[in-house]
Structure formats: structure tokens, C-alpha cells
């Protein structure tokens, strides 16, 4: 396959599919409450609406506030390039790209935190301080998880990690992978501002984390921020789906000449599966007290560390 084409397809899938995941999660949640819920494509309509609207920028803000949406969206899309949705799409990979992914997302967050402070509003500052607290606690856990998988794969490239897990059947039966899966799943929940860490649906400014930081944004800026948030969510889901649920071998077993189309469908199925998992987590938990969030981060860290330790001692 042409290098450029796979490059384009990778971007297209990540950017275009991302808002759908939110729709799926909302549908499942609505179902649990005997509601119909908003249409699956609601976030697309919302983004479309926001892109057409004017952007209002507070006079008290600096250039940081105006530049942040572009930096955030740019960094997140760049990170999305580095997480292949499929083995057939080896878009862009090199040794150490997983570290780049983590720190591209880190840079996006850094600017988001700055912009929350920049507007000088009450809630932005609160959101920024909470976001920093949570992310500082999560970062070690994410790094350990990724390095452990890197150790197993013998490479720090996401693509190589995928290849290493692809040949091995149902990975979650192996304790290392199960522990790391749970650790990264907790990170996914926390990084994407979901219950029990944050409530994406709340209108209460005093309880917000992510929403409080982007409270002052409107119009196109807001659309970029929202879109970037759901692409970031899809990046984590893709990592989970492709490293921990490498069902391609089953697909190959069913039809030896697995085409691009069927493997993309498989990817979609895995994304939906994880989205449903996220929704079930949201349904069955309540938002934690802010100062209980470190416990959750600690749990993720312990799981990741146990996985790492177990691999060092006994191997997979």
C-alpha cells in the first residue's frame, strides 16, 4: 500500500471516528436510564454548529488563550498519527514514538492548563489546578505500563508493540497484560474526564475539572478543544484495543487474506467494545470525592507496577 494513502487513511479514521465514540457512550448511558438519548452523531452536529459560530475572546486574556486551541488540536492530531489503528496501516513509526505520544498529549495539556489560568476566571484556575494534580499522579503509571509492553515487544514503537502482541492469541489471559490493561483503562477514564474522576455532563462549575478549563472558550475555539478531547480519547482507546485485544489472528484464521476493510471493521468493533466498557464504568460508579482521585491513580500505578514486576520475575 502506498505510504501516503495509509498516512491519510490513519488520520481520517482517527479524526472522523473520534466524535462517534462519545455518541456510543452517551447512547449506552441513556439506555441504562430508560431514555432514548441524543442521536449517535450529535457531537458531529454540535461541532458543525460551533465551527459556524463566532468566537468570543475575553479582553483580559493574552495570546496564550488564543493560540491554545490550535496547539492542542495540532498536538493531539500529531499524536493520533503515531498510534496506528491497524497493522495494515503502518503510517508513521520509529523507535520511541510511544514516548512522543505521551508527551505530545502532555504538551496539549500544558497549554490547556495555561489557558485555564490565562482567562483569570474563578473556575478556570480551579480546573487547571485540579487537572495538574490528577495528571501528575497518572503519568508514572502510564509510563510504566508502556515501558513494560515495550520491554516485552523489545521496542518503544507503538507499531512494534502491536506486531508483538498480534501473534499471541487472547492476551488478557496472561497476567501481565491483564494487569496492564486495567492500569491503562483507569488512565483512559481519568484522562478523558469520565466518571468517577470527572463528570462530562455536569453543569456545576464548582465540581468541574476538564470543563472548567475550557469554560471561557466559544465558537471555533471551543469546537477545536472539544474535538481534540475526543481524539485524545480515541488515542487511548486505540492503544487499549490494538495492544491488549489483538484479535487479528482470529480474523486471519477466519479469512486468510484479511483485507484492509475487514480489519478496519474489526478495529471498529473493538472501539465499540471499549466504549461500552467505559459507559458501563460510568453507569456503575459515582463521581469520587476530589481527594479520593489519588487513590484511583495509586491503584492504576500499583497495577502497572505489579505487571512490570511480574514480567521481570517470571516473564509473560
Amino acid at each position: 500500500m502506498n505510504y501516503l494513502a495509509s498516512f491519510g487513511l490513519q488520520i481520517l479514521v482517527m479524526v472522523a471516528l473520534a466524535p462517534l465514540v462519545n455518541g456510543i457512550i452517551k447512547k449506552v448511558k441513556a439506555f441504562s436510564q430508560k431514555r432514548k438519548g441524543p442521536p449517535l452523531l450529535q457531537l458531529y452536529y454540535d461541532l458543525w454548529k460551533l465551527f459556524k459560530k463566532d468566537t468570543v475572546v475575553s479582553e483580559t486574556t493574552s495570546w496564550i488563550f488564543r493560540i491554545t486551541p490550535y496547539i492542542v488540536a495540532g498536538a493531539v492530531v500529531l499524536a493520533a498519527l503515531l498510534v496506528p489503528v491497524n497493522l495494515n496501516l503502518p503510517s508513521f513509526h520509529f523507535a520511541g514514538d510511544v514516548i512522543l505520544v505521551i508527551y505530545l498529549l502532555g504538551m496539549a495539556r500544558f497549554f490547556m492548563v495555561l489557558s485555564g489560568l490565562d482567562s483569570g476566571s474563578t473556575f478556570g484556575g480551579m480546573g487547571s489546578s485540579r487537572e495538574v494534580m490528577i495528571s501528575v499522579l497518572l503519568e508514572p503509571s502510564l509510563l510504566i505500563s508502556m515501558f513494560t509492553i515495550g520491554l516485552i515487544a523489545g521496542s518503544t514503537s507503538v507499531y512494534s508493540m502491536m506486531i508483538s502482541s498480534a501473534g499471541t492469541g487472547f492476551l488478557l489471559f496472561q497476567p501481565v497484560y491483564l494487569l496492564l490493561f486495567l492500569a491503562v483503562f483507569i488512565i483512559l477514564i481519568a484522562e478523558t474526564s469520565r466518571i468517577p474522576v470527572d463528570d462530562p455532563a455536569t453543569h456545576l462549575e464548582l465540581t468541574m475539572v476538564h470543563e472548567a478549563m475550557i469554560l471561557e472558550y466559544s465558537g471555533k475555539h471551543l469546537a477545536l478543544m472539544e474535538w481534540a478531547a475526543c481524539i485524545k480519547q480515541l488515542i487511548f482507546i486505540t492503544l487499549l484495543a490494538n495492544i491488549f485485544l489483538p484479535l487479528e489472528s482470529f480474523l486471519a484464521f477466519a479469512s486468510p487474506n484479511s483485507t484492509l476493510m475487514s480489519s478496519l471493521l474489526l478495529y471498529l468493533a473493538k472501539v465499540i467494545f471499549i466504549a461500552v466498557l467505559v459507559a458501563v464504568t460510568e453507569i456503575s460508579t459515582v463521581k469520587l470525592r476530589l481527594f479520593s482521585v489519588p487513590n484511583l491513580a495509586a491503584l492504576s500505578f500499583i497495577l502497572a507496577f505489579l505487571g512490570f514486576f511480574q514480567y521481570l520475575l517470571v516473564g509473560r
Partner: protein
Amino acid sequence: MSSQNFLDLLKQRFPGEIHRSALINDNELYVEIYQEKVPELSRFLVEEKSCALVSLFAADERANPSGCFAIYYVFGVTGANLFIVFKTLIPETKPVFQSIACHIPAAQLYEREIQDLFGLEPQGHPDPRRFALHNNWPPGVYPMRRDFDGRQKPPFVVTEKADQFTRVQGAGVYEIPVGPVHAGIIEPGHFRFSVAGEPIINLEAQLFYVTKGIEKLCEGQSIEKCFYFAERISGDETFANSLAYCQAIEKIAGIIPPERANFSRVIFAEQERLVSHLGDLAGICVDIAHGFGASQFRMLRGWTYQMIEEVSNSRFLRSVNKPGGLRKDFITGNEKRILEYLNRIRKELTETRNIIKSNSLFADRVEHTGILSNQIAKDLNVVGPAGRASGVHKDLRKDHPYSAYGKLSFDIPRHQNGDVNCRYQVKLEECFISMDLIIQSLEAMPPGKVREPVTEVEAYRFALGYSEAPRGENIHWIMTGPDNTVYRYKVRTPSFCNWPALCHAVKGNVVPDFPLINKSFNLSYAGNDL
């Protein structure tokens, strides 16, 4: 203890201080005393006889023979169906009175309100800042004096000190201003948090953004018209307020409503409580992001609204009451429908309660959050579910039975810890009790007419009307004027008592827990601002 015993006790303890006394409307003992003696006698009642200050208000009676302002102190006697009302006269030439707030904290806000609205200065008040009027109201203009024209709009004063909040100082302490316009569709109120990081050191609420001047509007209006003002004090307590108003008018007119009306009133009052509590329970679930619980309670609330609408044709129970009884017999023919609804609601509510009970994360969020200590609850005379969750087990339906409550058997929830969990449990238990009371009333109510017409009321007579609203005790006091009009109408809703309690309950909690604590109290802004 009977009223005569109490009077004897007071006369014996304070010889020569009581000029006049009268027992009216069976359980209101009016005692006229000198203004200087009020602190002493009040402390005796509150500290030694465990009475509670339930209302404190002034009336402009300069046109009356006395030619003075009058201040009334209403005390509810614990353990007896009796109210003791101290009346004291304040001459216009010396508009000051002795503050009792230092010893009876519950009096603080009433005295500040009197200072703002009547221009009578409470001497020795620990915190004499403005309260009911904001700083942009011109000084020296007292809206509740009878010579102030309610239709006039005083000029907007721009002052240097735009706010007058208590400053907390120290390293890392900062203030968070929230409101008066909020993100949700709720009423306006300004909250000023002083925080060190996330923990809240101090919270002050500035209310009275939706002051409608109901007490002023009612002055001089006919009793029929005032009924509609009473209904509109607070949207979700329509029936509780109209009931308190009607009872006061009925006492003044010397009318006893027919039994069927009394039982019907219980049914409607409990339906209103059910709606309000289910809404609060849903709110608590929303604020901790428990989507399932929220949608279940909201659905049940919807069903209750449907029941109310089918029975009374008004979801908010407007124009159901009427002085003397009910507007018409709403219950006849609807008994079966009410029972069916209640069965459905009870079944679903039981199931929801059990599912939520098994969620340990839910328990973790609500337990030990927003604790209101028993001492503060007692001192501030916290009423209703918030009080019953903090060990103040008062309920007008039990302590001073009105309508048909004396003939029904029920118990009130008694909790001690005063956290969000206790308030949640009290409200949940009261939902079941309300449904029981409705069923009991349906069985016990006799046939017959539902209204005794009120034709004429005597001028310058007064009475207390009270009801247990969903949020707590609701005390109205009415003095009639000539030609079937209202001369002075004082409304004290439960929200007025409980707002300061909220500010105490959040101290020491983290900022993101405030909405949850606030929702567990669920106070009315309109009911406070009047």
C-alpha cells in the same frame, strides 16, 4: 404544660414585668412586656424551658392607639402545643431595641431584617450589617414602614463598599465569587467562598435578589387577594404556604373547616412533600453523577406530578385551597386513581432505594459530607428534614397538629449525624411516610362538604398560621385591617431558618462538594427573599 402554668411561671419568675397577657386561638399566649426585659425573658424561655425562637418580626402600628412600632417574638414550646408571643412596643422617637442575638443566635437574621425594613436598630447586635437590602438601596429608606409607598422606586445608590463580606486572611487564602447567575436553571444567589486550596474556610451567602415585596404588597389588600400572593411565595411550596395562610384567616374568622377539607388538605400537602423530596433525591444523585438514581427519582417525581394534575388540574396545586376549606371536592371519584399511582410509586421507589443502597461508592460520597452539628442546628433553629437529620426532631405535624394530622398515626424520621447521608435518608423515609398518610387520609375521610364560607373578618385581630412545608416549618402571622383586608402579613418560610445552617455545614469540606451539600438542603431563594 398548659398556657396557664406557663403564664404563672413567668409571673412568678419575673414579678411585675408582664403588663398584659391573653390566650387566643387556643394555643397562642400573647404576653406584653417592656422592651428592656425582652433579653432576660427570652433567655429564660430558650435556655431553661427549651423553647425555640420560631419567628421575630416588627409591625408598624403607629396608626394604632399605641402610636408605636411593635416587635413580636414568637417562641414554640417543646413538648406542648403552645406558642408564646412576646409583644413589645418601640416608640418612633427612640427607634432602638435590645438585641437578643448574642444569646439566641437564631434571632440574628430576624433582627437584621427588622433593622433594614423598619429602621429599628438592634442594640448590641454582634453583626449589624445590611441583610435584606443590598448596599445599593438608599440609606434611611425603610420599605416596610407604612408611610413608604410600595409602588415607588427609590434611586439606585452607588457605594464604595460594593460588598461587605467577611475577609479571611492568610497565606494561600483566596476568595471564590459564585453567582448570582448560575450555570443551571436555578434562582439567583451570590456565594462568597474563602478557601485555602480546596477546603472551604468560610462561606457567606448574599440573597434577596428576587425580593418581590410580598409582605408589603399584601398590606391593605383584601383577604381573598392576599391568598393568591401567599400561594406564590415559593413555587414548589404553593400548598404549604396557602395552607398556613388559610389557617390563620380561619382562626381569625372563627371558622373550623369541615373534616373532609382537613383530610383533603393532608392529602395535598403530602403530595407536595412527595414531589419536593423526590426532586431533592434526584438532585443529590445528579450532583454525584449517579445517573441511574437521578433518572429513577425524576421519573417518580414525574408520576407524582401526573397524579397531582389528574386530581387537582394543577401541577403546582394552585387554587386548590381556599380560606375555609377547599375550592371544591377534588378527592371524590379520584380515590382509586391516587391509590394506583401510590402503589406504582412505592414499588419503584423501594426498588430504587435498594439498588442505591448496594452502591458503596454512593455511600462513600454522602457519608460524613457536609456535617451540620446538633449544637448549631439547635442554636440556629434549623427546621424540617435538615433539622431531623441533625438531631432536632421537630415537626409541626407532630408538635402542633393542624388539619387532620392529630387523627393520623405516623412517626417522623430521627437521625443524628447531620451529614448528607442523613438528609438523604430523612427525605427518603418521609416519602414513604407521606404515602402512608395519604392512604390513611383516604380511608379516614368522612363525606360531606369541603368548605365553610369565610364572609367577614373582624379588624385588628391576629393569628398564627402554620404548616410543615417540605423544607420545614412554615410560620405565617396575620393581622387583619378594616373591611376584610390584611394589615400586616409576616411570612417566615423554612428556607429563612436554614440558609445560615448551609453556610455552617460546608465549612471544612472541599469546594467540589458544595453543590452536593447545597442540594441536600435544597433551600428556596424565592421563599427566603419574599
